């Protein structure tokens, strides 16, 4: 289980002396094998929480622990063996091939001077097959479409062989077709492989379709958390986004759908 306990975090700069926390007393439990959604308006602290959960940012107060072992005190390599991150977009400065990008996921498992061997290649191949990108292996990453890129980045994260996958708006810049593609992939990885996932998103319908639990955040605090069907309600969406929404079960989709109606001033 990935557990965040009473996290506080404040971005500091010389020009911003405010005492306002970006994250204020946030506690979240992510059960093993679950797919948890993080929802909230822009600037509510979703990305900050993901960065704290991945250990990239150290919390000012509070702790993050995976299977009861605190991340603080573990090396970056140790953490990366257990937790992988899929950002919204990835822009390498050089023209790496898809296979090279995917193999970078093996970094935490290799020594400083160690090169990947057949076992690492097999894992990369498995991740490419799992994300249906094996036919792209020798293509340059930068020549791929948005959906292909995102699948390759997910393959790279899978090659890390993590227990937990943290995804920051992985479908934000994708068209409808690619959104469905990535959503199907995530469901499959969670269901078939049991990878625990935390998914930050603005897409309420994606969250409704994929996530078994949701955490709603506003102004750096947790507004509500619980099973998706209990939390994703019209009153809660109003509190979260100041938006009136129509929330109803969609029989064909098999989950609730959210239609925003109007902004409340």
């Amino acid at each position, binding site marked *: 289980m990935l557990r965040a306990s009473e996290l506080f975090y404040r971005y500091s700069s010389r020009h911003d002396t405010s005492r306002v926390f970006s994250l204020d007393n946030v506690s979240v439990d992510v059960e093993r094998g679950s797919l948890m959604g993080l929802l909230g308006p822009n600037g509510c602290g979703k990305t900050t929480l993901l960065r704290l959960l991945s250990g990239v940012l150290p919390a000012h107060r509070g702790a993050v622990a995976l299977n009861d072992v605190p991340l603080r005190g573990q090396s*970056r390599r140790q953490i990366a063996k257990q937790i992988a991150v899929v950002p919204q977009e990835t822009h390498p*400065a050089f*023209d790496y*091939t898809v296979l090279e990008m995917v193999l*970078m996921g093996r970094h935490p498992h290799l020594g400083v001077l160690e090169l990947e061997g057949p076992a690492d290649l097999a894992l990369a191949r*498995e991740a490419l097959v799992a994300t249906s990108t094996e036919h792209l292996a*020798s293509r340059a990453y930068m020549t791929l479409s948005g959906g292909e890129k995102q699948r390759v980045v997910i393959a790279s994260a899978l090659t890390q062989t993590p227990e937990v996958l943290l995804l920051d708006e992985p479908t934000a810049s994708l068209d409808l077709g690619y959104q469905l593609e990535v959503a199907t992939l995530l469901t499959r990885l969670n269901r078939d492989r049991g990878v625990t996932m935390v998914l930050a998103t603005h897409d309420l319908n994606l969250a409704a379709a994929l996530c078994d639990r949701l955490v709603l955040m506003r102004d750096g605090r947790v507004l509500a958390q619980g099973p998706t069907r209990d939390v994703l309600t019209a009153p809660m969406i109003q509190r979260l986004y100041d938006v009136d929404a129509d929330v109803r079960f969609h029989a064909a989709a098999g989950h609730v759908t959210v239609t925003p109606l109007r902004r409340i001033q």
Partner: protein
Amino acid sequence: MSRLESVTTSKGPMGMDLAQAMPRSIRARLATTLTGFGLVAIATCLLAPLVGSAPISLARVFDRSIPFAENVDAQIFFVARMPRVFAGALTGAALAAAGVVFQALLRNALATPFTLGVSAGASLGAMLAIVFGATVTLGPLSAVPLASLAGAAIAAGIVYRLATMQDRAMSTTVLLLAGVTLNSFFSALILFVQYIADFAQVYRATRWIMGDLDVGSFQPIVAALPMTGVAFVLFALLPSSLNLLSVGADAAAARGVDVARAQRLAFISASLATAAAVSLAGPIGFIGIVVPHLVRLIVGVDHRIVLPASALFGAAFLVACDLAARTLLAPLEIPVGVVTAMLGGPFFLWLLVRRG
């Protein structure tokens, strides 16, 4: 064992691209590349001392029956040409490798070892030592290289301090902006020093800035070796981190790279190599951008291959440029920095157009 590892390997169809991409493992590619570029470097370094405006006989060079003082061929080979070849190889390898590291650190394929002001600092130091006739020495280091190292260290220190003021990890934007600004600032100071200096001093300083591998003996090379050696040991620890840093700081951290430490190592090692190379041969331009890009065109962009291959090819490239510099208009000698600029300038522009 993690979950993905515990899953039986997928039996899904293996696409053609995957089949083509998989068998050439990094180990095989690295071995092939290092052998190829190593042979090129060795061949260039062996050939270069044999060629020049004065023809020499290899048999006479190694003829022990002729005393060294009377053996002109041996003197040309061992005193005039060999140190020059070694200096070229060391400088070329250091600048090319530093170019690779700076490009990955700054996530900018057009960065060079001179982008961050280290070279301008070194040039100012050398200029001051020449103009004020400094005579200070430190071990095998004479006044000009010593002053250029001091200038490089001051420039690197300022840029590093500015880039790490806000955070433990470096801001590559601040690094780049501070470097470019410092370059301009030091260049202005160099002009000022030239303005107040006399003609002889200005001529000597200008010749130094053009870059020159005619070091005259092995002593300056030996003096530059420890710094270059340390830089190359640090380089050896970097390549896989450079791959990830060039994807992005957060991506690197999420894949297990200690970003602040890797950035610090990259900056220090590349600055050391640049400072050592510039103190030895002056600021020879374009090696640090031409060589890494040529190497990438041949072997791809993986830093575990690009970094050692660039060092080897950089050595061969600068030795070959110096050979051209001393033979093309013989007996007149072209400054090697002019030759590299003649090749590098158009190449740089071609690169810009190609990227555009």
